[in-house]
């Protein structure tokens, strides 16, 4: 459209577009996180913003085992499911990554879409499909069914993160180890896995965060006893707009920040190698 020789829009408007509008967009992106954190320290009973005063009463209420028993159980369930989902994706996706790295490019590109498909499918549709099949075979919604669902849906994240690293590994390193007489397990443990570690850590991080936050799979596959944290928060929001949700948000944001900072510290040095 602007292929004409003379420029119809002056250059300073470009600066305004990039630095002004771009800066504002960045603020819009981050502001809700800051608002959620500051909201959690309100001394008031309502979600009035800016908050009326500073207090940690909602954190006290949240950490009180009697007043927030249900929330503690839900958090425990979510952490357990997320940890098991990470374990499951380690068991399935990491071997697949190692195997794919040794296969011909053409074979890989014919199998890979099947392995990555769960990432594209709306997970709500998958939750429903899994519920129908589980019911056919006689399984009731449970913690284990939820874990299985999470491994299927988020395992590909581990696969993708690890294969990015695997593609950069020189195959002669494993070869050298074999030539020098190391058995396959020794090669795996001493050469392949250490080289793959940054990808595995990144994958574990993604699977954990996604599993912890998942609603649409757990909605169908978790039973009444295994309430998960996001669904419990959803219920609290729908029922009463309890300000404890703000404190929960604060805790989750802090957790995300810590994990993100640790991940950057752990992953950064290897990246330059």
């Amino acid at each position, binding site marked *: 459209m*602007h292929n004409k020789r003379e*420029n119809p829009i002056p250059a300073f*408007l470009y600066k305004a*577009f*990039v*630095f002004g*509008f*771009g800066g504002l*967009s*960045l603020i*819009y*992106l*981050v502001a*809700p*996180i800051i*608002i*959620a954190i500051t*909201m959690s320290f309100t001394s008031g009973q*309502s979600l009035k*913003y800016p908050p009326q005063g500073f207090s940690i009463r909602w954190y006290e209420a949240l950490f009180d085992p009697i007043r927030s028993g249900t929330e503690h159980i839900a958090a425990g369930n979510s952490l357990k499911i997320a940890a098991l989902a990470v374990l499951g994706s380690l068991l*399935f*996706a990491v071997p*697949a990554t*190692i*195997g*794919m*790295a*040794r*296969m011909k490019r053409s074979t890989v590109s014919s*199998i890979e879409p*099947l*392995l990555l*498909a*769960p990432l*594209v*499918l*709306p997970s*709500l*549709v998958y939750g*429903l*499909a*899994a519920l*129908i099949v589980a019911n*056919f075979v006689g399984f009731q919604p449970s913690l284990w069914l939820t874990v299985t669902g999470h491994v*299927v849906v988020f395992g590909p994240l581990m696969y993708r993160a690890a294969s990015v690293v695997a593609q950069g590994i020189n*195959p002669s390193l*494993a070869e050298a180890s074999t030539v020098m007489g190391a058995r396959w397990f020794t090669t795996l443990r001493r050469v392949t896995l250490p080289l793959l570690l940054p990808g595995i850590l990144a994958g574990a991080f993604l699977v954990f*965060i996604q599993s912890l*936050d998942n*609603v*649409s799979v757990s909605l169908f596959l978790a039973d009444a006893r295994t309430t998960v944290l*996001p669904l419990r*928060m*959803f219920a609290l*929001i729908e029922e009463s707009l309890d300000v404890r*949700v703000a404190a929960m*948000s604060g805790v*989750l944001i802090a957790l*995300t920040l810590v994990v*993100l900072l640790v991940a950057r510290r752990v992953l950064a040095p290897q990246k330059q190698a």
Partner: protein
Amino acid sequence: MKASGFPYVIPMLLLSVAFFATPLAVLIGFSFTGPDGLTLSNYGRFLGDAFNYRVLMNTAKLGLQTVASTTLLGIPIALLYWHSGKTARQVIIFLTLIPMLTSNVVRTFAWIVILGRQGPISETFVALGLAGQPFSLMSTELGLVLAMCQIDLPLIILPLIAILSRTPVQFTEAAQVSGAGPWRIFVTVLLPMMLPGLLAGWILVFASTSSSFVTQAVIGGARNVYVPQLIYREVGTLFDWSMASAIAVVLLLSTGILLVAMTMISRHRRLVGHA
């Protein structure tokens, strides 16, 4: 190296076939069943109902509005990244990752605070005299689009940044030296380069809007109903799994068609590559 890698892939392949492809096939089969055997009645009932049809159209509209608004805000952020130094670039990536990795329910909660009657938008409008009395943007389409755009924005920023970070800054210098203005460089050099990232982002954003159950239910409220809530209602309250399957297949097809269309556009050399 002769050692075959295939045995390593078998566990995940079996997992995908048994626990992913099979359920999906069963779901599709299930959508064609009714009390008296095979039937198309689920689809007939769903698409024939004026309310359901409107919900389907609203869901597509919400998806497109989110795609459009994330594009509008994502491009300037990507350009800001492009024109920034090393440290500023790190900061922009960090500021994009925090909201992306923060729980969806947390971000939805933040928007309840922002859009509410006592929230910052309402208070600011009243303080500036733009509104006579406090108002709530909850349960409005505008409020939902504002929230969905913020929630999905990182999905479009990251693919754009991924492309720009691999591009040397000297890339636009040739155009600059030849006397092209910043807008011309943006439209003829940077935008075509970012197009594959935009397409990847659009697919991610659209797919995300079609399963963001919590945000739609909470911010949209009872007045704005979208397809994910219809599916959940069929399963959770009406116990009609065949109907739920049919709606899920319709949702799948509508996202699928869009996905294929976008992939085809991205393969279209004349649009993506150099003009």
